[in-house]
Each structure stands twice: as structure tokens, then as C-alpha cells.
């Protein structure tokens, strides 16, 4: 009887382990595949001309495969989205977690969840029909499809993850901390920003990481509003991101062009790993300090 129980335990343990390994397996598979299919083109083009070349003409008679414009665009675009999205998301989260009446909170939270559930192609379409013409008339530029349009779309798209994760972090702060602060004579606002927010900072930082991850990885919505010309990034110019460089040409690509697209995907993958690693390092450093 005893051993039977133990056997069942082991079996369940094994099944759970297996299910856990599925995730790890997927990551490994993707990593191996990306590296294996991304390396040949880099070898052929050369790492420096590939990463630092400023011209991308993949189908020209004399093809050029320089992805510096895409790298810079992705960095600027993500930074811009964070610049707009994080303050809005952060203050919204503080308001919802600490200040808002229960009814307002439930309505706004439902709206935020809905925002998270909207498919990115819808963001792109609305951006194309409203934002792009809007930027065009507002700033008197010939065409509104630009880095700015992409930044605004991305900023809205990362709001839900920032708000939701920040709220969870803020609500997890023990009530005793806040009570102690209030008892010492601090006002509620002082308490939220001096006690609650610092206590929840690792969770809020995690929210920002999620936002960065979503912004740098988004392709569909960005493709529809950014114009996709392989220019060096500039706020009102048509630009192409790392993600859109891969997805816009993949369907008809062949030969070295296709391999180069895989190399771009590899670069994007390394970027995301780097960002995650940097922020993990930063978070751990803070905890110890």
C-alpha cells in the first residue's frame, strides 16, 4: 500500500517535471534553430558589415545587408514607448492600487484587461486610420507613418502589462508598512510614494521589463504605422524595426536574403536576452544593496 502511494507520487512528480520541461524544451529548440539558421548569413556577409552597415537592399542587383537602421530604430522605438508608457502606467497603477474607490477601480481594471486583449492588428489598423493622418495634419509632415506613430502605438500597447503587474506589486506591500508610516504623521500621498512604491520597486521594475519585452517584440501593429522604409531612425521619418524587417520580407524571400532575415531574428533574440539579463542583474543588485 505504502509503496503504491509512493509510486503514484513519483508518477505525478514525473508528469509535472515533463510538463515543465516542455517549456524549457521549446526555448532550447528555438534557440538552437535560430542560432543554426542565423549564423550562415552573418558568416557570408561579415559580422561588422551586417551589424554596422547602414544600407539594406536585399533584393537589389548588388544586395546590401546592413541592419544598423533596424537596430537603432528598435532601440529608439522601445525607449520612446517606455518614456511615454511608463509614467502613465505607473501613476495609473498607484491610483488604482491605493487611491481609487472600489467601483472606479473595478471599471478601470476591466478596461485595462480589455486593452490587453485587443489583437495587435487592431491597434495597427486604428493607428493607420486615426494616428497616421493625425500626425500628418498636426505636425505638417508629408506623411504620418513614422517612428513617432510607432512609439505612440507601442506606448498604448505596453500600458496593460505595466499597470497590471505594478498593481499586483503595490497591493502586495504589507499593510503594516503603510500603517506605520501614517501613524508617524506622513500624509497618504507621502506614504504611497515614500513607503509603498519603494517596497514594491522590484515588482514595478519587472513591469517595465515586461513592457520593454512587449515593445521590442511587437511586429504587426508597428508594421502598419511605421512606413517600413529602411531609413536611419528619425522621429518623423518612415522607419523599419528589427521585427518588421523579418516579417515584411519573409514571405517572398529566398537564398541569402532569407538567411539574413534569420540573422536579424537572431540579433533580436540576443537583444531580448540582453535586456532581460541586464534588468535581472539590476534587480538583484538592488535587493542586496
Amino acid at each position, binding site marked *: 500500500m505504502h509503496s503504491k502511494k509512493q509510486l503514484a507520487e513519483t508518477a505525478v512528480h514525473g508528469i509535472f517535471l515533463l510538463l515543465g520541461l516542455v517549456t524549457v524544451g521549446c526555448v532550447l529548440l528555438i534557440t538552437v534553430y535560430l542560432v543554426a539558421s542565423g549564423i550562415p548569413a552573418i558568416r557570408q556577409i561579415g559580422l561588422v558589415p551586417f551589424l554596422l552597415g547602414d544600407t539594406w*537592399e*536585399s*533584393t*537589389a*542587383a548588388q544586395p546590401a545587408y546592413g541592419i544598423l537602421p533596424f537596430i537603432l530604430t528598435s532601440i529608439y522605438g522601445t525607449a520612446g514607448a517606455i518614456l511615454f508608457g511608463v509614467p502613465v502606467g505607473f501613476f495609473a497603477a498607484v491610483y488604482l492600487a491605493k487611491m481609487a474607490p472600489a467601483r472606479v477601480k473595478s471599471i478601470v481594471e476591466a478596461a485595462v484587461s480589455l486593452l490587453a486583449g485587443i489583437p495587435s492588428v487592431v491597434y495597427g489598423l486604428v493607428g*493607420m*486610420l486615426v494616428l*497616421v*493622418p493625425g500626425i*500628418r495634419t498636426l505636425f505638417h509632415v*508629408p*506623411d*504620418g*507613418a513614422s517612428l513617432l506613430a510607432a512609439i505612440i502605438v507601442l506606448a498604448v500597447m505596453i500600458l496593460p502589462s505595466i499597470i497590471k503587474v505594478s498593481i499586483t506589486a503595490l497591493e502586495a506591500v504589507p499593510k503594516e508598512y503603510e500603517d506605520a508610516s501614517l501613524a508617524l504623521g506622513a500624509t497618504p500621498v507621502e506614504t504611497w510614494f515614500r513607503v509603498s512604491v519603494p517596497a514594491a520597486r522590484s515588482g514595478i521594475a519587472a513591469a517595465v521589463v515586461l513592457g520593454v519585452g512587449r515593445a521590442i517584440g511587437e511586429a504587426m501593429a508597428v*508594421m*502598419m504605422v511605421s*512606413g*517600413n*522604409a529602411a531609413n536611419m531612425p528619425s522621429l518623423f521619418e*518612415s522607419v*523599419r524595426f528589427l521585427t518588421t524587417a523579418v*516579417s*515584411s*520580407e519573409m*514571405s*517572398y*524571400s*529566398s537564398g541569402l*536574403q532569407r538567411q539574413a532575415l534569420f540573422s536579424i531574428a537572431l540579433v533580436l533574440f540576443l537583444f531580448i536576452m540582453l535586456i532581460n539579463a541586464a534588468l535581472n542583474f539590476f534587480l538583484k543588485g538592488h535587493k542586496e544593496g
Partner: protein
Amino acid sequence: MKKLASLMLAAVLVLSALAGCSQEASGTVTTDGSTSMEKVIGALGEAFEAQNKNVTFTYNPTGSGSGIQAVLEGRCDIGLSSRSLKAEESAQGLTGTVLAYDGIAVIVHPDNPVSDLDVDTIAKIYTGEITNWKDIGGQDAEIVLIGREAGSGTRDGFESITGTEDACQYRQELTSTGDVITAVSQNPDAVGYASLASVKDTVRAVTVGGIAPTEDTVKDGSYVIQRPFVLVTKADTSLSGSAQKFFDFATSPDAAELISGAGAVAAN
């Protein structure tokens, strides 16, 4: 007893596998060539397979040049070319049969006063030589060039007809015809190009050299931004049974609807 049964089972399996093989070999239609013809040939192939259950249809998107080469070397039944055969290709014993025409409309915003352009002007606009609408009879506004992504059949067609390969100064490179039309409909200063069949009321197609793009003008050749979709076969050797059947189906009037559904103008 058991052994005998399994032996018999194995024999049956092998036989049926062989039977399957021989059936497939007789019922295969292989096509090879132009990537621009993907939609048209895909629609035709699908319909043909649906009508003939035991026939396998394959399409290898390699490009017009390699498709023609493949027919010549006997590596496929029918070659697909999105240009007319050159004289030296015909001289090697190839026949081209026009399946359809790909008409490409140059579209502008409905409010744009410019209504007629010629091919030279279009080329100058797209290569950045003319950058303002006022130079060609429009308002004083910068021309916004909208096109398709590298590798797209429509882009390839447009650029090869206007002679602007690798020289277009695109402001936007979008990945579908629908996106191009939406982008042009949202910007009064934009110009774009799209497959004739997909042009909608939200944009206006300009006349090219005075000729409006319609099915008729594309078919009779008076509208110049167009190219033929050609089925290439060997003149001296006849097609296999199923390949001939497909050829007849594709060039029959019944296929016209499928072809126009795929965005081209049927030749027959």
C-alpha cells in the same frame, strides 16, 4: 498461423503502397517559375485538385527565369513566366501561352487633382526626380511614395515595367495591397500602386498616357502598366495526360473567374 497472417498483411501493405505510388506518378502536374503568379496558379491548382481527386498539383516558386529553364531541362511539366518569352527562348523550342494579364493601377487620393500620368513621369516620381505635385499639375505638396515590400510580385511587376528596379525612393513599404490602398486613401499627397482587381472607391486610379486601367484596356494592351502571365511548354513534346488536362482547364473560360479572383485579368 500468426506468422502467415502477418506475412500476408505485409504483402498487402507493400502492394497497396506500390499501387499508391504508381497512381501518383501518373497523376502529377508540376509547375515551376514566377513568384508573382503564386496567387493565380495557387487558385487554379487548388480548383484543379478538387476536380481531380487523384492528381497532385505542385508549384515551385523559383522565378520566371528558372521556371523557363526547368521546362527546357524537363524538370517540370509547365513553366510559369511573368514576362513574354524572349526570342532566344522561343528558338530553343518553347511555346508561351498567355494565361492572364497582370494589370497594375497607379492610385492616388480621390481629392488629388492629378488624373493622368505617363510611364516616364511615374518613373521620375518613384525615383525621386519629381518630388512635388505642383510640377505635374497638382497642389504644392510633397509626393508621398507608397509601395510594396521587397520580393512582392506587384512591386517586381511595377518596377520592371516602369524601369525603376532598385531605384524607388519609397516613403512606405507595406506588405499587402489592402494596406497600400488604405494608406493612399488616408493621405491626399500619396501615390501608390496596386493590383487592378483590388482597387476600390476609396482611392482613384489615374489614367496612364490617357488610358484608364480596365480589364479591356489591359487585355488589348493599350494600358501599358501590365505584364502577361505565361504558361511555358515545350513545342515538340506533348504534355502528360494530367498536365494537358490542367493546361486545358487553366486556359478554358471556366478558369476566368478563378483568375480574376486572384487579382489578374484572364486572357481567355
